[in-house]
């Protein structure tokens, strides 16, 4: 008896200790409850911030992961882009929060020839790189030539190769082998005849010509290219110091040796981990072990005139920026609570944890296309500020492979490989009715409510985003409709040896999402469930794979269905049509040849059309073709949430930034 009492007492004691130790956490709402009285009032304009940082000169960003590389010719992800846009600069830059208006940055101004083929840029005088070297037109020419001659299909160099080398030329090696067999092969390029190599290099050099005496760079395009200025604002067009880059072991600018630098990857670039730009910050260190990058202020920064109304001039206000990769959400959340993170990445699943800490909120006004005023929340004493509702330039879509490649011994992803209820034939998604049926069976509204918690909007079925040439809000979309889904399945032309269609046999296949991306898991699960509701014989399994494996299998066309996303590089329709219908993803759909040719023709005509109206006309037709063909199941566009400490000043949202532009930020 005595023993039992002791045991119970011990339990009570230990649990008591645990509960008490959780006490301070519970204290926060108690403090908040003291502020309940003012909460009854109408939300008023936020009171002047009384929040002050322990260290107002250092900005701490807590994010996920770390950059792949800091070589601007290669980097193609947002973590690296954030560093590049603060350390390097481009000839033109986005005007504050606009994705479509540009201000001169390293170019002081420019002119365009009447035929839209020749751009002449005056290069800004008196700008120096971080190591003290002066910026010259030759550096500008070198930087762009290096991108073009480097190739590397994992880099965004396509953005520059199309305007300079010609539409359809996605890599410089195609000037030698138009079939693309030399792509990414340095050894292959080195084996090519020297004279031929030299002529390719000279062609590239002739497209971007520097005149140091006149202070200009003249660029000659292969054809008129609608989004050319937008392309030059992208990180890929960052200007590096030619002399410094060559000293580090990058291309030396010679047409005799360029093949030895061709297809430099992020792993072997000599400037992958060091930088020397003209930007407002210098890279001080990059520690892989702690995934921490530290930037320090460039005290010799050139900018003396504001690039837009109210823009910063002179050296940045922040002396240091520390960007830390903290993959665990609980840790990031703690850092936000402790005030050690000025801003942190908050996954959509965790916003309900952070929202009680928001004391001030800035909502996006979709009609005005801008953020409204800051408003105090019901918990006005809380330390965070939320910028809410700006549409991102990202969309997650479900893709279908129209001719699945089946390895020897069969594929687990298509079951039996036959239309027998236990699998699907390799050409299952070649049937237009089946693709449309899947579109009608996808309930995106549930996804928006349950997963995005309302933070996403559906767009019409055209591949492009609202606000871009070619987008028409009145264009049709496939709305969730089980009856139409059934109708399309019944109309499918695919039959098995016994003449049975998919409605009678049912099907089984595996759809894939990359582990960790719960949005994709949710979407595919919703689709799988609604298919089962339409016909219990419709079995779609939902499987997760590590990203690298999924990439491998879908590029090998072995996955019948998978979910993926696209983040714009430039705010232009070409940046959607081209990857979805021709390049990055388009090449994995396994379109029939005539379909691929039809789409490619539209895409090429659209980008080369001389003016906006002409482009609009081409894209209008293309949108209809895309809708009729239904190559993808297009998802909603998530809107943005940005959380920051209320002592942060100067934040604005530009969807094309990779993270923050720290030059405009400061802290109280």
């Amino acid at each position, binding site marked *: 008896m005595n*023993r039992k009492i*002791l*045991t119970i*007492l*011990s*339990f009570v*004691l*230990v649990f008591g200790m*645990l509960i008490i130790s*959780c006490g*301070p*956490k519970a*204290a*926060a709402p108690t403090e908040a409850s003291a502020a309940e009285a003012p909460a009854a009032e109408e939300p008023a304009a936020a009171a002047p911030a009384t929040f002050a940082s322990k260290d107002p000169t250092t900005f*701490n960003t807590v994010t996920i992961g770390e950059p*792949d*590389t800091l070589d601007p010719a290669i980097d193609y992800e947002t973590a690296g882009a954030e560093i590049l846009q603060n350390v390097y600069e481009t000839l033109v830059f986005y005007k504050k929060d606009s994705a479509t208006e540009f201000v001169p940055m390293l170019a002081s101004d420019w002119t365009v020839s009447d035929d839209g083929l020749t751009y002449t840029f005056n290069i800004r005088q008196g700008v120096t790189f971080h190591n003290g070297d002066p910026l010259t037109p030759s550096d500008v020419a070198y930087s762009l030539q290096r991108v073009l001659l480097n190739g590397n*299909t994992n880099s965004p160099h396509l953005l520059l190769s199309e305007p300079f080398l010609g539409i359809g030329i996605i890599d410089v090696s195609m000037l030698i082998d138009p079939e693309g*067999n*030399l*792509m*990414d*092969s*340095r*050894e*292959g390029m080195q084996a090519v005849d020297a004279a031929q190599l030299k002529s390719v290099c000279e062609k590239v050099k002739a497209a971007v010509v520097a005149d140091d005496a006149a202070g200009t760079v003249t660029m000659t395009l292969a054809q008129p290219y609608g989004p050319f200025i937008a392309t030059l604002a992208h990180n890929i067009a960052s200007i590096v110091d030619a002399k410094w880059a060559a000293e580090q072991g990058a291309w030396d600018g010679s047409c005799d040796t360029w093949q030895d630098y061709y*297809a430099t*990857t*992020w*792993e*072997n670039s000599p400037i*992958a*981990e060091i930088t020397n730009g003209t930007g407002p910050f210098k890279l*001080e*260190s990059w*520690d*892989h*072990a*702690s995934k*921490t990058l*530290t930037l320090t202020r460039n005290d010799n920064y050139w900018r003396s005139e504001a690039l837009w109304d109210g823009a910063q001039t002179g050296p940045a206000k922040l002396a*240091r920026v*520390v960007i*830390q990769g*903290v*993959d*665990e959400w*609980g*840790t990031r*959340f*703690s*850092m936000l*609570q*402790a*005030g050690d993170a000025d801003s942190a990445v908050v996954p959509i699943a965790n916003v309900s944890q952070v929202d009680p800490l928001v004391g001030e909120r800035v909502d996006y006004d979709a009609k005005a296309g801008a953020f409204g005023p800051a408003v105090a929340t019901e918990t006005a004493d809380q330390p965070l500020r939320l910028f809410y509702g700006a549409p991102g330039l990202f969309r997650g879509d479900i893709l279908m492979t129209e001719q699945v490649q089946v390895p020897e011994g069969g594929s687990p992803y298509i079951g039996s490989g036959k239309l027998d209820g236990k699998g699907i034939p390799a050409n299952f998604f070649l049937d237009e009715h089946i693709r449309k049926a899947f579109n009608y069976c996808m309930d995106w509204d549930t996804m928006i409510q349950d997963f995005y918690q309302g933070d996403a909007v559906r767009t019409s079925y055209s591949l492009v985003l609202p606000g871009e040439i070619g987008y028409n809000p009145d264009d049709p979309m496939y709305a969730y409709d089980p009856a139409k889904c059934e109708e399309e399945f019944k109309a499918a032309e695919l039959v098995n040896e016994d003449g049975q269609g998919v409605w009678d046999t049912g099907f089984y296949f595996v759809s894939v999402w990359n*582990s*960790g991306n719960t949005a994709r898991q949710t979407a595919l699960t919703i689709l799988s469930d609604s298919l089962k509701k339409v016909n219990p014989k419709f079995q779609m399994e939902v499987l997760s794979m*590590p*990203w*690298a494996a999924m990439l491998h299998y879908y590029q090998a066309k072995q996955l019948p269905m998978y979910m993926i996303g696209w983040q714009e590089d430039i705010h232009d329709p070409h940046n959607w049509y081209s990857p979805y219908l021709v390049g990055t993803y388009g090449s994995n759909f396994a379109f029939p040849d005539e379909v691929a040719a039809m789409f490619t023709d539209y895409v090429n005509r659209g980008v080369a059309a001389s003016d906006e109206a002409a482009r609009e006309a081409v894209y209008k037709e293309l949108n209809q073709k895309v809708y009729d063909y239904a190559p993808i199941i297009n998802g909603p566009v998530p809107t943005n949430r940005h959380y920051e400490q209320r002592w942060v000043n100067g934040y604005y949202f530009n969807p094309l930034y990779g993270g923050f532009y720290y030059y405009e930020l400061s802290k109280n």
Partner: protein
Amino acid sequence: MTTYIIRRILLVPLLLLGVTIIIFGMLQFLQPAERAALYIRDIPKNPEALESVIRTYGLDKPIYIQYWNWLVGQKNPNTGEIHGGILRGDFGYSRVGAEPVIDMIKHRFPATLELAIWAIIPIIVVGVWLGIQAAINHNKFIDQFARVFSIIGYSFPAFVFGLLVLMIFYANLKWFPPGRLSNWVIAEINSGSFKTYTNLMTIDALINGRLDVLWDALRHLILPVITLSYISWATFLRITRSSMLETLNQDYMTTAKAKGISTKVAIKKHALPNALIPVVTISGFTVVSLLGGVVITETIFNFPGIGSAAANAASQLDVVTVLGFALFNGVILILANLVADILYALVDPRIRLSTN
């Protein structure tokens, strides 16, 4: 005793051979293109270029030749440079870490080692002490309390307990931050005003005579150490307690007491040395698991050790890195076992006598 130790040492190369064969066997499940990362950094995507890499590094040769190459390295006939070779310390190139696997281990192991050193002390000392107290006070309050206290820790998943202490001691009280060092220390290391010698920050701080850095390093170590300790105490407590209880019931203890030796002395001189034998075994295992990296604790506290790195590599399917870490772990396991075996012999005369 000497024979016993020599025998144990002679066993090490055999065990290492076994480990290398197992790891190499696992590597054979990879495509030649993936195995190329054992020798070179950037693997070409272009099939022709890839073919030439496969030929250059003999990835199409018979398995025993490949195994030999993997051990000693392979010469690139074009450049004359030797690539790979685990005996040369080249474990291949880590795609995830963007550096050679061995460098990744070098950069991250000091953090893991430091955490292990600081954690093992409270784990053993407090765990064993609790166990002894529980046994001596068998079925009394202190016994019940110690058992319940440690069982709760044992049943707590590390990620729950870790997050709990992080929320309390960092988010609310702001005492002990996550990470390994504060930004200002990192800045000092970067600027060269603080020199690193061992990369164990607590020791480097002492060498530099910098108590502020020492305190900063300790502040970052406290929470992971508490987490690791709390979830490990139950094991030590239970093993010490049951072993101690068993010893206390032995005839020689009764004899010792009958001779008039005080209970305290009887426990210290007779019971404890015998009761601690299984503790040595479990300590060896604990040290090995700590040195292999503690994935969850490192992840939660953003502590840059090898556990979180290996987990990250695994999630990115960077098999060469994962197996490099596995090999490293295997070597540590073998060496730690050797040490444990020797300690065993020192503590327990029966072992060294029976082998002699």
